């Protein structure tokens, strides 16, 4: 059901966007990364990314259309001109920078350890020796776990973040490493209520930015100016506070 609603919304948005004038800015997001972008019960795209996108459009005084797009195809779709920008919690990486242009970062991602409230979990290699830790496969958290702690802990990699949460809740994992802000969202759910962040955040210098086509430098500049403006005006802080009680900028 979730998939079909998502598919239909995507289809409607894509169909709808054909009828819009050329000066409407089309922005893609994924819709599967709560609380940054997700599809609410009425089938609308919502979340931090979506709110930022709307605020930026307002600042630039441009009509905007937000479209949903699966993660795999999100960069190819941008290059094919199906939309003009991606605001979908995308990390700046060297590989991506070769094919798209990134604006200034609009938030910084950090990694964090999550573990059970009633158990001690040190976060240095020595005290983690012999523990079992999980992360999602093909993510920065998974790479960090393998590279930094692979020699000391048993690493379990999951297909989805949800499966990693399930195994943590089932007691198969002593802890997991994940992007901090989505994990923050999970800790507030009932399933996550017995768990908490452990130790210090892991700053891996992961910056999240808006992606545009490399030929669209003018649009990139406009986004940068608008971003600066909403940070100045406090609009950014307002949106931030709606999702997190701490600053993620």
């Amino acid at each position, binding site marked *: 059901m979730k998939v079909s609603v998502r598919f239909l919304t995507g289809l409607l948005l894509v169909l709808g966007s054909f009828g819009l004038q050329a000066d409407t800015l089309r922005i893609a997001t994924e819709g599967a990364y709560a609380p940054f972008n997700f599809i609410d019960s009425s089938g609308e795209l919502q979340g931090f990314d979506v709110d930022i996108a709307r605020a930026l459009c307002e600042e630039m005084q441009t009509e905007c259309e937000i479209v949903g797009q699966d993660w795999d195809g999100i960069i190819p779709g941008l290059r094919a001109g199906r939309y003009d920008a991606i605001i979908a919690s995308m990390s700046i990486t060297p590989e991506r920078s070769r094919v798209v242009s990134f604006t200034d970062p609009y938030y910084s991602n950090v990694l964090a350890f999550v573990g059970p409230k009633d158990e001690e979990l040190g976060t240095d290699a020595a005290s983690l020796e012999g523990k079992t830790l999980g992360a999602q*496969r093909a993510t920065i958290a998974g790479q960090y776990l393998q590279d930094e702690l692979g020699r000391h802990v048993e690493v*379990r990699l999951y297909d989805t973040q949800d499966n990693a949460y399930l195994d943590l809740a*089932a*007691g198969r994992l002593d802890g997991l490493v994940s992007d901090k802000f989505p994990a923050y969202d999970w800790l507030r759910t009932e399933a996550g209520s017995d768990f908490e962040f452990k130790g210090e955040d892991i700053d891996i210098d992961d910056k999240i930015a808006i992606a545009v086509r490399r030929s669209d430098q003018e649009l990139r500049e406009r986004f940068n100016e608008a971003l600066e403006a909403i940070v100045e005006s406090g609009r950014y802080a307002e949106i931030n506070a709606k999702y997190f009680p701490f600053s993620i900028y």
Partner: protein
Amino acid sequence: MDWIYALSDWLQALAAGNEPWNSYARYLPQLLEGAWLTLKLVVLSGIVGILLALPLALMRTSKNPWLWSFPYAYIFFFRGTPLLVQIYLVYYGLSQFESLRSLGWLWDEVLSQPYWCAIITFSLHTAAYIAELFRGAIQSVPRGEIEAAMAVGLSRRQQYQKIILPRAFGMILPAYGNEVILMLKGSALASTITLLDLMGATRNVISRTYMNLEFFLMAGVIYLLIAALFIGCFRLLENYFNAHQKATHLPTGKLDVQVQDEHLKDTAR
């Protein structure tokens, strides 16, 4: 498995930092270790599967509803649901029950371990198919052979021990080999419960190197080699247990004149 890493070091030295050869050499050991785990999973679940299948099939061929209804439902369930659903039920499903988690040894050493969850699921799954093979074979042992067994005064138990089950085992061998190869391919689902079998190791390597084509191709070749190994083993087993199918006719000329027959002369050539 240290020799694999020694081999990898040697290959890496040979590649001398040249991509993509360096990556191939560097990640090959992970694939081979994955292949070893895949082999263990398939062999162990194939053996446990056939041991479970025998009593199931015997119960299934009974005429007593108390006996045949359980294996009937069991086989219906395991043949009728996807292996992925079964493995998720065992791994993520069972762990939802608090009471199971306080079982001590059974939880700590068995049900909390992805390896044993995979073995349990694969064994139960393949047992359902093998039981059905056994049932068909038991029912198709020629009536005449059973009558002959009765005629020489074998008890019911002896008939099963000496005639029906050995005959049935010979009959299911080719199909059992088939089932083990299907299981080999099904075992790739172990990667969904964090096991680093051949598929899991390959996906891990690809998430680091982004070399989808090369490493999936390598994994495919390794699966083919494992399948070839199984095919070879089953050929040997068939030659041993079904030797009668390969028996050559004796030259009739040397037989006693009284048992020489016209039709024997034809086939003897």
